[in-house]
């Protein structure tokens, strides 16, 4: 009886780990999608409402989930004006993004590049820059989705197989 319980526990544990890893990939996609929506929102508000960054950050914080804390902190920093450029606030605040650990080095690089190109440009250039980043982000999301399918399959199979192997080996 004890062996059977142990077998089930090892099997479930292993499968759970693979499920967690797969979940991380899904979170990454959701974060990137929310960032894409935020960029689209920024474009719209800059083009039609000429909102300043503090106002935009406040509204983005209310809209999002993963970036809510990040944009709230960013707004506070903007209003604080403590001698650093917006790009520095943006870079420093990235850990406030929920699910930050799920992002890859390339995602973070793109994320920082967006912050480095915000606020100090004229409207036309600002919109153009944001649309370039939107395009790059869309490509990253498409790639992440296709990777997700493969990785999810591999992880699930690997998790189940490893669980079975371990359980049998420990029997």
């Amino acid at each position, binding site marked *: 009886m004890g062996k059977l319980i142990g077998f089930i526990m090892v099997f479930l544990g292993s499968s759970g780990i693979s499920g967690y890893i797969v979940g991380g990939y899904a979170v990454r996609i959701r974060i990137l999608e929310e960032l894409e929506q935020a960029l689209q929102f920024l474009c719209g508000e*800059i083009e039609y409402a000429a909102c300043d*960054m503090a106002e935009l950050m406040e509204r983005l914080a209310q809209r999002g989930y993963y970036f809510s804390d990040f944009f709230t902190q960013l707004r506070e920093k903007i*209003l604080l*004006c403590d001698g650093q450029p917006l790009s520095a606030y943006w870079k420093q605040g990235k850990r406030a993004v929920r699910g930050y650990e799920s992002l890859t080095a390339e995602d973070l690089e793109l994320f920082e590049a967006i912050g480095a190109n915000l606020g100090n440009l004229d409207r036309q250039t600002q919109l153009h820059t944001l649309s370039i980043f939107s395009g790059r982000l869309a490509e990253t999301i498409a790639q992440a989705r296709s990777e997700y399918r493969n990785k999810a399959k591999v992880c699930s199979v690997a998790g189940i197989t490893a669980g079975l192997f371990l359980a049998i080996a420990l029997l």
Partner: protein
Amino acid sequence: MDRKRKEEEILRILALPLRRLFQEGKIPFSRLQEIRLRTGQPLLVVYDGREFFVDGHGRLLQDQSKAYLTGESDIRESMEYISNFSLYAFEEELRQGFLTIRGGHRIGVAGKLIVEDNKVKNIRHISCLNIRLAHEIPGCADKILPYLLEEGEFVHTLLISPPRCGKTTLLRDLVRQLSDGGERRAGVTVGVVDERSEIGACYMGVPQNALGCRTDILDGCPKVEGMMMLVRSMAPQVIAVDEVGSREDVEAMEYVMHSGVKLIATAHGSSLADIRRKPVLCRMVKEQQFRRYIILQKKQPGHLQAVLDERERFLFRAGQGREWGTG
């Protein structure tokens, strides 16, 4: 305006080195009128009507050689704070050469202009900033308001003043008093067209300055369109507008006047003769469309020089023992 609030509003937009300098020097912001920043040039302030240099410890000086030299980074950093890191949001204002920040303070900018089709498209490489501090003085229109009423009703009024002599401050308080009403005077609905955000100093559409409980404000709206919109949509009894002078402004003002709405406007000038010399406003004076003219003193900013009626008869004149001042 709360003194502390004003100090915070100004310090917040200054680059860190300048902010430290003003904090160290403890310059009273209540009497500070202007801060002038020019790349590579001494830091200048207009304090209590006089110009001073400021040294590295925030002390006011007459000696230019000891003054703090404003660096390029001071201006760039200040500009980032002024625009909330959002220069794109102030393109329209920059095109006009100034922008208004929270609290109604006006920031004049100069630098390299980008011109397209003979029109200013933008300003790049901003090298000069002139920070003009807004002054809200509730009650400064107390003594003047009775001159602007006929049988208890407000009449069309033109406020004439050179720049920096307090016309917007006076206009703001007149709006507030007309809107709130008084002991023997009912309040009226006032519409304000605040093209440069100086009267109400709106932040996200909400006036930061007291404009009264019956005031509707169009912030950042061109004067001509704003006057028309208010007449059509908000049923105002009085419309207030700042710095009029163009042909379109005059046409819109006449539309307002002929719609049964009273008008209060301001114009640059130091006397009624100056207004008569203006190509389009002169006709309104000749036709006696304004029933009152308020003229502010040039030599003593914030002080009333005269109040005249439509026939240019003095109802009040400075130096007749009834001095009046906003300061």
